[in-house]
């Protein structure tokens, strides 16, 4: 949930094929939580994970961004046209 809407124009990012609006300055994790999504990464044993430490330490929130795997959603700011996948890319 966003508590303060900035004057900025939203950008559009794609999350698992779905177009989502986000605001410049938000991180990927922020944009996901703002739309009520708490879980995105799937672990090796098939469990869902989302934001945990929020400061780049635990690597639980990682996503694949524009084909680059293991990107921390809690640290990475959104950018217009960014393509995010919760599936791990083959690397």
């Amino acid at each position, binding site marked *: 949930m966003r*508590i*303060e809407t900035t004057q900025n124009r939203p950008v559009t990012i794609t999350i698992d094929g779905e177009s989502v609006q986000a605001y410049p*300055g938000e991180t990927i994790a*922020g944009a996901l939580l703002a739309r009520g999504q*708490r879980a995105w990464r799937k672990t090796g044993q098939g469990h869902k994970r989302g934001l945990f430490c*929020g400061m780049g*330490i*635990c*690597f639980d929130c990682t996503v694949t961004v524009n084909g680059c795997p293991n990107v921390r959603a809690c640290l990475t*700011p959104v950018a217009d046209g960014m393509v995010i996948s919760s599936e791990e890319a083959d690397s």
Partner: protein
Amino acid sequence: MRSEIVVVGAGPAGLQAALSAAEAGAEVTLVDNYRQAGGQYYRQPAPEFGDIEPLDHQAEGRRLWQQAAQAGLKLLTETTVWGAFEGHQLALDGPNGPDTLQAQALILATGTYERVAAFPGWTLPGVMTTGAAQTLLKEQRIVPGERVVVAGTGPLQLVTAAALVRAGVRVVAVIEGSPVMRRMWRRPFRHMAALWNQGERLAEGLSSWLTLKRAAVPIHIGWGVTTAHGPEQLTAVTIAQLNDRWRPLPYTSRTLSCDTLCYGYGFTPATELARLLGAELHWRPEQGGFVPIRDERMQSSVPGLFIVGDGAGVGGAGLARLEGRVAGLSAAAQVMGKAVDAALPSLAAEQRFQRFYGDLFTPGPGLDELARPDTIICRCEEVTLADIRAVIEQGADTLMAVKQLTRCGMGNCQGRICGPLAAAQLARQTDQAPAQIGQFSVRPPIFPLPMPTAEAVDLADLPTIPDEHR
């Protein structure tokens, strides 16, 4: 790159150290992992948000950074220090790719991570550290859920719960674990010396408490979360009253419906770089665990290596800034080879508060007993308590053995989250003291590196300090 003084970490301790050293006339480079200076405590709104109303300590942080910038230091942001080598040489990875940075004197102000507890359900989406919620709020003005329970121990829980209420979130309850706090009022005079001159902190605590009371948020003191319920995402938590050893009392448990749990049981100092450089540590549970041994100038057992702030022993932002000033002035005097014309501040009052904080908010053994056999201890590699117990029963009696046999600590977090949890389990099962168990060993790179960086760096060119000397 080279610099007379390099400061790692731009939170309260690092900013102040860099500012004091630069004002004393030294050439200073300040390196930080995040987009903007401030660390966690002064975490600034994202720059894209422009001139929005500051929260909490953001204005103070901005002032400190402006002062530091005027003193003429060099700031490297979004730069990860992933290794530290013989002769105060650091390996960096930043916006301009990999690089090395050679310092004459090095000041580490690397801060902490939150200490968590492994209870059934702690890996469910919707369960996060209190710091995660606070960062979202400070940096992005986003709240993590609609019905939030805030639990753990220490002032961060109270302050964050109040901030969430002000942001319009329904805080279901605040759960503070400390049984000491419950009976503090019985011996008020014992604590008065520590709280003398702590008007600002008391005001912040009181204002948070009033915010919560006005919103009719229940505050349970001497209680803790024992289970988080799913099935797939968080839907509720069970809480119970705790005894003096932080063990849940039977027949006191109750269940609270919520979609988010924010929790934290204090902080673990980030000592990886200090350990890579061979600094000696000692076990100080009331300051967060293993902390570097320092002299009164904040110099570690390694000459020219200064360590300050919560990363050298949890003590809060006030103490962090004073330690930063002491280290900044001392390091400047060292590299310039002359006395610095500025008085070192006294740390006594803040150290009194640090001891008071340690007395109140250091969890007891019950916290390590919440995990059940199928509870995950290592989130990255999905290693359960049963997995760890099994190898201990087969004779593993060191952290290294547990790591090698279970993969606990081998994931991307490199044991930062599970390390203290695994150590506590090993200590319990083998009846060893935590000081004897120690920590997972540390090796560069201390953070996962992108392949292009890893390929660009030849570790053979960087003289690592051998294990037996650290």
